[in-house]
């Protein structure tokens, strides 16, 4: 293969790396109004009165909007295919504010200074309510976060509004209690995973204006242009045909930009004033007024027989969605979906629990999407089980994990198409030198080194729901335009998709123009989330390219006056016996003269499976017995993402995901004070890993071939974040015998654990 499997540089790498104006804020129309948001200082309150008169008088203030001025249709900011399982529980501005930072008023002025000055002049009277802050008791709290009567659920998620329960879930296959009763060894533990911030470098931003026909154009740093268009149409009560959403380059997303955090505010200002408007959240707003990962409490019970076969698995979750239910049910479901099938010697499995509202910043999509939380809990429990069984944890896994060609109780009767997880574990063991190092080595009286491990799976796209389309056009001079609705957030997906197209078309990468994404022009794509781009959009691209090749051959046969079946095409030349026609000539002839038809290949793909990529992760840590400090020395990740389309880009995806996972494991924690104010509202307080915090990371691939994927590929974006937390926790336990069950693993927790021993 010429392009698939090659580590070619990204098609946009030089322009983005060297600072060309390619991001949302760089492509702003002249003199946009600057939009600022007045935000609630209370975690839970009702607005009794807002006086904007003083602010409105200020010169340069163009409009101020409060809950009295906005459409009253409930909607969700979640970026999901319609009908979204996330409840429609928002207005653009509501009378009730539900967390510190919730929007109270929209201010648009000719510049930022005036907008900020106007903000200070707005007087708001609140009736302050008792907030719901502890998610573990939210269901019995007398305050009801969403008392409104017009909240809508598109699908039955078993909401109990009056109990602050967004959704409940119960799935049992087999009889779990019966199987536990038969097990020789049972472990049970409750784990807590914290809220995590996305902390992408480009904060949320959008720009809007009306075009020459009066349609609303919104340029946004978003992962989901088509969902944003639908969201805006609903929230603003205008037809989607009046809206165009454009995505330029994106400065990172990680799922955060799968939630429509800002677009609606700029758009509303433009609709009200007719003028261009831009909104750019600062870092503090990005930390405090957007979304984070869902914090969860996860209770795991595992039962095994004497031989070490895991026979019963029971996971009970409680998830904190904060003030609004974006992605609340789906993140919760994914936790079960991506953990239960992994160990398939089970005879009964159960996943159940609920998601609750609290008066904190909403949670939303974040890389890993519930699987991360579930993996920490399940893998920690498996490591505990291994200890109880006196088995090497790698052996326990090799014995119990699902293999290609097998099914699993919770795999919906489907057969796993591909997996090299067994090889991943073996290879990772060798790389970290498990046999020599497991479980620990004493370095000095205070310092102990130890290793730990975990495995994980994710999915590729959303089975049975998300479908993507792609188009490829043969242009007048024999090059191609690849039209995509997916959104490269920096992962290199535009490049990877072009590589696939080039492979099928047997052309070179520089003859493919990639266009993504613009809802007026791009074919429909739900956007880039759920690890779907390489797999779902990729397959659509392959199909589109094959369609185009067939059309080129048909057209070539017609022009040559020969039967289609006898024509060959090598990317450059069409041939039938002695007769030849170059692609360039064919391209020319398809747009020249009468009765011609420009050739366009179409492809649409949605899958009824979501093939899981797998990772085996191994951590080596050094723990200081005196201080509890954990230093990560080495991390090994061996990945099965099917065929690796671009090894360089895949490797960086793995390294980047692992570093985010290390952040989750050791440093990152979204924290609130007793009144619901977020404490971690800057990079001073919210610690993402820097260069010194990550130790060494080594990545290897054990390729498999996924029969339903493009060239055998599966996804990679999310799965890579899942193993660091459980593997590091395991290593810490192996080092000093302290089992940290509540992330992040801070020195205090390890130290306190040591004191208790």
């Amino acid at each position, binding site marked *: 293969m010429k392009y698939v499997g090659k*580590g070619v540089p*990204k098609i946009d*790498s030089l322009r983005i790396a060297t*600072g060309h104006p390619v991001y949302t804020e760089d492509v702003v129309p002249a003199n946009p109004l600057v939009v600022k948001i007045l935000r609630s200082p209370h975690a839970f309150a009702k607005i009794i009165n807002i006086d904007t008169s003083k602010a409105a008088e200020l010169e340069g203030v163009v409009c101020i909007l409060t809950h009295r001025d906005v459409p009253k249709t409930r909607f969700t900011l979640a970026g999901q295919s319609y009908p979204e399982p996330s409840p429609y529980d928002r207005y653009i501005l509501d009378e009730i504010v539900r967390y510190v930072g919730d929007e109270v008023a929209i201010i648009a002025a000719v510049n930022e200074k005036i907008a900020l000055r106007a903000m200070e002049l707005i007087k708001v009277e609140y009736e302050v309510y008792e907030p719901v802050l502890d998610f573990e008791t939210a269901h019995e709290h007398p305050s009801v976060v969403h008392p409104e009567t017009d909240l809508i659920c598109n699908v039955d998620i078993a909401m109990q509004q009056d109990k602050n329960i967004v959704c409940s879930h119960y799935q049992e296959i087999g009889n779990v209690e019966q199987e536990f009763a038969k097990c020789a060894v049972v472990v049970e533990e409750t784990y807590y995973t914290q809220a995590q911030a996305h902390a992408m*470098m480009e904060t949320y931003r959008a720009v809007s204006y009306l075009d020459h026909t009066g349609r609303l154009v919104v340029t946004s740093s978003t992962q989901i242009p088509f969902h944003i268009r639908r969201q805006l149409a609903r929230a603003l009560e205008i037809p989607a045909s009046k809206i165009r959403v454009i995505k330029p380059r994106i*400065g*990172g997303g990680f799922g955060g930009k799968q939630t429509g955090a800002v677009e609606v505010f700029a758009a509303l200002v433009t609709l009200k004033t007719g003028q261009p408007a831009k909104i750019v959240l600062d*870092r503090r707003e990005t930390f405090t007024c957007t979304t984070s990962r869902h914090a969860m409490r996860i209770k795991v019970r595992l039962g095994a027989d004497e031989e070490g076969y895991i026979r019963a698995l029971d996971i009970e979750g409680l998830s904190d969605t904060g003030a609004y239910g974006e992605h609340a049910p789906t993140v919760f479901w994914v936790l079960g979906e991506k953990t239960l099938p992994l160990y398939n010697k089970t005879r009964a499995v159960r996943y159940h629990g609920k998601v609750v509202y609290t008066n904190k910043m909403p949670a939303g999509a974040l890389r890993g999407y519930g699987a991360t939380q579930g993996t920490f809990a399940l893998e920690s429990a498996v490591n505990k089980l291994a200890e109880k069984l006196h088995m090497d944890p790698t052996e326990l896994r090799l014995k119990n994990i699902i293999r290609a060609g097998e099914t699993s109780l919770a795999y919906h009767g489907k057969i796993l198409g591909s997996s090299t997880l067994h090889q991943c574990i073996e290879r990772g063991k060798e790389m970290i030198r498990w046999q020599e190092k497991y479980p620990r080595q004493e370095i000095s009286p205070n310092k102990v080194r130890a290793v730990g491990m975990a495995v994980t799976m994710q999915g590729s796209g959303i089975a049975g729901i998300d479908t993507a389309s792609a188009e490829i056009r043969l242009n007048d001079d024999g090059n191609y335009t690849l039209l995509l609705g997916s959104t490269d957030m*920096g992962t290199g997906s535009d490049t990877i998709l072009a590589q696939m197209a080039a492979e099928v078309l047997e052309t070179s990468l520089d003859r493919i123009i990639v266009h993504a994404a613009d809802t007026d022009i791009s074919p429909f794509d739900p956007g880039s989330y759920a690890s779907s781009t390489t797999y779902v959009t990729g397959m659509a691209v392959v199909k589109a390219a094959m369609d185009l090749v067939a059309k080129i051959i048909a057209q070539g046969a017609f022009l040559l006056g020969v039967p289609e079946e006898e024509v060959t095409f090598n990317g450059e030349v069409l041939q039938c016996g002695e007769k030849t026609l170059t692609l360039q000539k064919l391209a020319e002839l398809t747009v020249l003269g009468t009765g011609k038809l420009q050739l366009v290949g179409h492809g649409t793909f949605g899958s009824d499976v979501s093939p899981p990529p797998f990772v085996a992760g191994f951590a080596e840590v050094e723990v200081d017995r005196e201080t509890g400090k954990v230093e990560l020395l080495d991390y090994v990740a061996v990945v099965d993402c099917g065929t690796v389309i671009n090894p360089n880009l895949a490797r960086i995806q793995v390294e980047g995901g692992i570093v985010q996972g290390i952040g989750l494991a050791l440093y990152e924690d979204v924290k609130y004070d007793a009144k619901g104010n977020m404490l971690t509202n800057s990079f001073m307080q919210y610690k993402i890993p820097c260069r010194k915090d*990550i130790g060494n990371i080594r990545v290897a691939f054990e390729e498999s071939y996924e029969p339903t994927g493009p060239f055998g590929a599966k996804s990679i974006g999310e799965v890579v974040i899942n193993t660091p937390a459980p593997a590091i926790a395991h290593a810490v336990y192996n080092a000093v015998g302290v089992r940290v069950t509540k992330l992040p693993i801070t020195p205090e927790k390890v130290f306190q654990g040591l004191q208790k021993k």
Partner: protein
Amino acid sequence: MQIEATINNQKMTLEVAPDELLSDALRARGFLSIRQGCDTSCCGLCTVWIDGKPTLSCTTLAFRVKGKHITTIEGVRQQAEEFAQVLAAEGAEQCGFCSPGFIMTVLAMKQELKNPTEQEIIHYLTGNLCRCTGYLGQLRAIKKYLGGA
């Protein structure tokens, strides 16, 4: 107030407000390579050179560059591209939002440190955050770039 400064080797007269930050002043004058990732001088995205030294433009008041030489990545296009090519060959730029500030720091390091060790490189760049790449690919690129130069 009015100040004179040299931006990318061009003498300019700038009208700046007393509280205007250099990052904003530069962006407002079309130097759109300036990115900002924080409000607390933590991320390094806004790094430019002032008299050749890498400096955070988000925490420098614009009037303080009076009479000084400011260099943004637009002023060192060729060098920046040379390094960017190595970075891209490694696949080590993802969203690219951190890259201009990062590259300005790398180029400054190249001038300042002779044969830096891995530890020295990491130390020099500690203030440049990146949320996408996980840093290791950047390190591989720097080592290739320094080794090859």
